[in-house]
């Protein structure tokens, strides 16, 4: 790395700058414009995911041998994409990058043969849904203490357990199920339609536009080759968690930014007692604090992603980024609605939708791995 690159710097590369412009435009036209309708409908409109193919998200990191672009994966660029898409709509954005999370995790943990086997389906013109199943339906769910188990029996693994909040679970062609074998976590690629695999749609407080599923695994059998992670190269669950946290956090940055812009305009226009309510400190300070905490969140996420990109240890940074984003995204969602008063509670305004979506930060794990 050049000396220049080692300086503290917040300047985007030329490529990132151009990509951001494209992403922002796409986000505004293709996500924000349909955000409310998709939320009400509880799903993305027909053809939405195919439209996201023009962004090339999935193909970029897939190795050339498998037919992808083979461009080295950039956590920073992926994070910026997530931020920009999240500004349009967090749940549609999550859906759009879910296959990429699967792909990234296969690249991180799969052998050459496994990459060939599991990534070649993505070399298509159409959107290919695939997902990761990590969370389990418990309040005290802990990624390092999974209850989903994998047991080797001859040339197959037998998997049992229940997973929750599996994004695109109902349409995914492949599900990377994270399960424990003798206390060690690894990923198991389970193709759709495998016997014993049950998919049930969930309804959540927010993220309506992206379908999430409860996935039950009842003696599901997959070939031994479908296990990512071995004794020599253990499955890197911590990396998956950290990069996923950053992906979700980055989306919350975009959503919180949308909130900030919305309330800024609203409080300047809304008149009470003869002048815009923004002229009152009790209102203005709430807006100021949203701006301050959003910038704080952003720099934390950027730093962790940048450390990941540079190959530096980034577990602590990603952990703390999630801590601050979970806390402040909730606060920003809450105060955003509060600033609109009763109007904020009406579904005519976007703020109530963002309030519901922003609460997913700190809940979602193992999604949007950048």
């Amino acid at each position, binding site marked *: 790395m050049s*000396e*220049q*690159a*080692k*300086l*503290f*710097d*917040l*300047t*985007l*590369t030329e490529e*990132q700058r151009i990509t951001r412009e494209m992403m922002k435009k796409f986000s505004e036209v293709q996500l924000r414009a349909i955000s409310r309708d998709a939320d009400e409908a509880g799903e993305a409109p027909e053809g939405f995911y195919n439209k996201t193919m023009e962004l090339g998200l999935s193909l970029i990191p897939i190795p050339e041998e498998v037919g992808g672009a083979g461009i080295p994966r950039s956590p*920073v660029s992926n994070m910026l994409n997530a931020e920009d898409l999240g500004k349009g709509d967090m749940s549609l954005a999550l859906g759009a990058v879910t296959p990429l999370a699967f792909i990234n995790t296969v690249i991180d943990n799969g052998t050459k043969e496994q990459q060939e086997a599991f990534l070649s389906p993505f070399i298509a013109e159409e959107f290919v849904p695939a997902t990761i199943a990590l969370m389990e339906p418990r309040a*005290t*769910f*802990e*990624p*390092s203490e999974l209850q989903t188990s994998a047991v080797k029996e001859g040339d197959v693994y037998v998997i049992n357990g229940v997973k929750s909040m599996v994004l695109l679970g109902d349409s995914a062609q492949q599900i990377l199920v994270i399960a424990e074998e003798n206390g060690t976590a690894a990923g198991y690629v389970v193709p759709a339609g495998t016997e014993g695999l049950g998919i049930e749609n969930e309804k959540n407080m927010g993220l309506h536009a992206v379908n999430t599923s409860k996935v039950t695994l009842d003696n599901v059998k997959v070939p031994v080759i479908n296990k990512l992670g071995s004794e020599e190269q253990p499955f890197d669950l911590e990396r998956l968690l950290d990069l996923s946290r950053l992906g979700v956090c980055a989306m919350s940055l975009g959503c919180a930014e949308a909130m*900030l812009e919305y309330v*800024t305009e609203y*409080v*300047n226009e809304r008149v009470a007692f003869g002048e815009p309510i*923004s*002229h009152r*400190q009790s209102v*203005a*300070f709430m*807006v*100021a*604090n949203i*701006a*301050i*905490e959003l*910038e*704080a*969140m952003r*720099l*934390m996420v*950027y*730093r962790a*992603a*940048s*450390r990941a990109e*540079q190959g*530096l240890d980034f*577990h*602590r*940074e990603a*952990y*703390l*980024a*999630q*801590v*601050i984003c*979970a*806390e402040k995204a909730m606060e920003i969602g809450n105060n955003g609605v509060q600033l609109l008063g009763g109007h904020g509670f009406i579904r005519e305004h976007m703020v109530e939708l963002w309030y519901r979506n922003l609460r997913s930060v*700190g809940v979602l*794990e193992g999604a949007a791995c950048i």
Partner: protein
Amino acid sequence: MINLEISPGHQNLSNMINGMAKSMIRPLSRKYDIKEHEKAVELENLAKMMEKMGGGGLGGGDKKDKKEASGAPEIKNGMQMLGVIGAMEMCWACTGLTLAIPGMGLGNAAIDAVASDEQKERFGKVFAAMAITEPGTGSDSANVCTTAEADGDEWVINGEKIFVTDGGQCTHVVVWATLDKSVGKAAIKSFVVPKDAPGLEVVRLEKKMGIRASDTAAITFTNCRIPRDNILGDATIARTAEERKKAFGGVMQTFDNTRPAVGAMANGVARAALDMTREILEKEGVSLDYGKRRWNSSALQAEFYNMEADYEAARLLILKAAWLADNKTPNSKEASMCKAKSGRVGSYITLRCVEICSSLGYGEEYLLEKFARDSKILDIFEGTQQIQQLIVARHQLGLSSRELK
């Protein structure tokens, strides 16, 4: 390219300052807190060392002139970055003593920012305190009542200043005074007043909750005379709105540089409290390894992670504000953002660490209680929390000071 790590050059300097602060300042911290106002003679050598450092090759390799092929402006990590990093390390050791180091006064910052070359020659090496606040004028600094009147070759200054940091031990005071109260802020100018000027009297040193090693003086000026060329900046009073804005803006601009520095001080104390708390907790078998999800951790761990996240975020806001300044980008909003966040987070963290460590936190055997006393002022001076929020709000909402009071 996005990178939020300190550059190797600055990191070396940071380590050096940390080493000095750890060995030379921290051991004196409790002693001079108790001795309140007593001159810390041990610091004189340190001041000399720091002056030398300031004179030579700061920024290390970063300052080398390397133009990119495209001709794009070169990104710099320079003096502002070093300033905030230095403040963090020094205040990690002791805020009170940091403020008491000769040459570290805010008056020096004002001189650096506004003085002419000739004045820099005369005042560049003095120890200058800053006198803005008056008994009736705090955050509304445009309202100063101290007057300066031209009389022949001299200015005659009359008024009372309070909360002058280092006012007792400094050699000079940069005083804000008005040339004509009826004109408002356009008539406010700053003047360098030597301590031995006739009519200047240090009337008392305040007894404070924290930063006791640093004196805080009340100073009166009674027909105090100084040479005409001791005025910083232009002596004429701007008459048009545009000119007025520019003139006062110049005075206020100093704050765009000093706010991140004070934010950095608060951040340094916060880290000191976190470091000490971690040490105490780990000795008692509490692991702080970012293992489990926040709400599966103990309340103690969860709160510690919250504090660390806030501390780190404040730190990055400070670095960004400094980075903007180093790269000649307006940073008024960011400077206030970082000061607001650092100030409140600093008080929160230091107070919480006292509680978390129980009797060890509250007692004087450790320094945690001192950190909590010292940090509070950092959310007050150089613009209170509320003033910072006001500034951020005006920027964010696009409102003038008349619209958003």
